[in-house]
């Protein structure tokens, strides 16, 4: 028996969300921020363009490897708050 595909539109979106998609999103974000650190390698001593000009705090973010680790901690604390709110709302 073959599926009847004539009633399907050309573009569809499913209701289910695979959990790996969120993981991929997270990895992409971390990778993008990590690649942003390449700026420091290519242009040592210079502030991050745009960000550094708008907010002085972002000027030297790429100057030390500690920010890689602090980024992970910040994501962890963010997850904590998000989980807490999510669990309370769901409960």
């Amino acid at each position, binding site marked *: 028996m073959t599926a009847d595909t004539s009633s399907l539109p050309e573009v569809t979106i499913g209701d289910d969300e695979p959990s790996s998609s969120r993981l991929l999103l997270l990895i992409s974000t971390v990778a993008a921020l990590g690649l942003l650190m390449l700026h420091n390698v290519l242009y040592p001593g210079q502030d991050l363009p745009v960000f550094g000009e708008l907010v*002085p*705090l*972002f*000027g*030297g*973010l790429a*100057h*030390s*490897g*500690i920010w890689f*680790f*602090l980024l*992970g*901690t910040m994501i*962890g*604390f963010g*997850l*904590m708050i998000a*989980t*807490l709110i999510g*669990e*309370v709302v*769901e*409960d």
Partner: protein
Amino acid sequence: MSAFTTALLFMWVSVLLTWALVNRGIPVFQDLARDMSRFFMEKALGPGADLVEGRPGSGSRAWMFHGMLWFCIAATFGFIELWLAHEPTALHTLSTIGYAPTTDQMSSAVGLLSYNAIWMMLVGASLHINARLSGSGIASESNAALVSYLYSGGIMLGLIGSHISGDWGDYMLTAAGITYLLANVAVAVNHLLTMGERGDSPIQPSQWLIVFSLIIPLLGCLGSLLGVSNDSVYHSTVTFGMVAMALAVAHYVIPSKAGAPLWSRTLSGVTIFGLLFFITPFKMFDADLGQGTAGLLTVLYTLSLIPIFAAVTNLVRTAGIHWDSSSSSSSASITLAGVVLFIPVAVGTLFIGVDAISLENELGHLIDPMTHLITWGPLGMIALGGVMACFPAATGRELFSASSTRNSFWLAGIGVLLSVMAYFSAALVDGALSEAEVTSDASEPMLILASISFYLVSIAGIMLMLNMIKGVTRGTPITSDDSGPAVTADRMTLTPGSTSIRSLMSAGAGVDTEIAVICDRCEEEE
């Protein structure tokens, strides 16, 4: 008589008096004291007591939740402090938003955060332990929960105060200290009231250690107010509180998870009374010693190894009775790892403490890594084990993921051990270079390894916290039958007299326990 001897005698007499009062109660005034304490803990708070729920386990849960949150923050600050040791300018960009702590301020903040976070976790576990062993529940759950917020507020004040130099920083640190004192008084009264409701059950080693760990620091404060204290004795009371509370939790977690009673009653007694009467040199490296106290203090430092060795042997042998059960439990494993770490800590601090007394200061460069080891090794790991074991029982639900709990155990264990080894190596290299009057950054790779490996502890804390949050709402409910393996003794000996089944079960008897009544005079009387 020197101030040191007077202070020591005051503490010893106070300890004996406390022991007698806890054991025998307060004659005549017992009911009055109990009723007044209950009134001040609940009714006198007015609407404040209604702010928190008084459900069973809520007090313990609140302390552990707050403690774990501060643990994550403390571990993050600890990581930053280690990183700044090899790259002091790493966070200079934060000066644009006004955050530029000095090395001393960062060190002070890490010390304050880590000590109080671990203390909160241990107190939370102790509330559950005492309620369980007393068989009555905590005397005032709402007071315990409310006081956890007070203590947390104190930590926040202390954190801000430790970053501010000048009078305002001092004011905030003083306010934080008063907050801790008030909260600890409330917890101590709560514990005493709980123990008062235990009926005829004997007081277990964990309960003795819990009560003394809360009362001895308060007696140290009282001694200071009365002018009969000495800097080293006062420091020792604070240190005693933390060590005794950690051992109290270990004396409950390991037997309960192993499903076996404590291996030796004598070693338990030696642990309790040895800790009370001798001064452990943990964290006493900068105590201001009076004239002529060094000899006696050295003797007391050395004797303090006896209760530590006794506790470690007793707990390791207890875990060994049912090794399968204890090794398969994350909480028992991490607690046992923390207990074993007491040995290098005790021996190491003895050497460093005696070196500090002798004013030779040949081991001064090891003080920082040793403080790191004491805080995050035995104390931190036992606190994590206490939370892993007691939080599910207090909430009535298992932690959300057993594998996540196991990962937290491995991350914390590896992180602490690696960072301690690297930190010690760096300190030894720095010490050798300093002695040779050579300037070099040879220790930098080891400091980098120390900071990166300690980052694992921070991640372990966050993972456990997430596990706890999810576990409260979605964890598997614990039925009364599966609250862990029953602790039963194979054989017990009794002397003639009357007792109850409840007392026997509290002492570790089970349905299969063989009970022998030993009577020396019975045959003569027959």
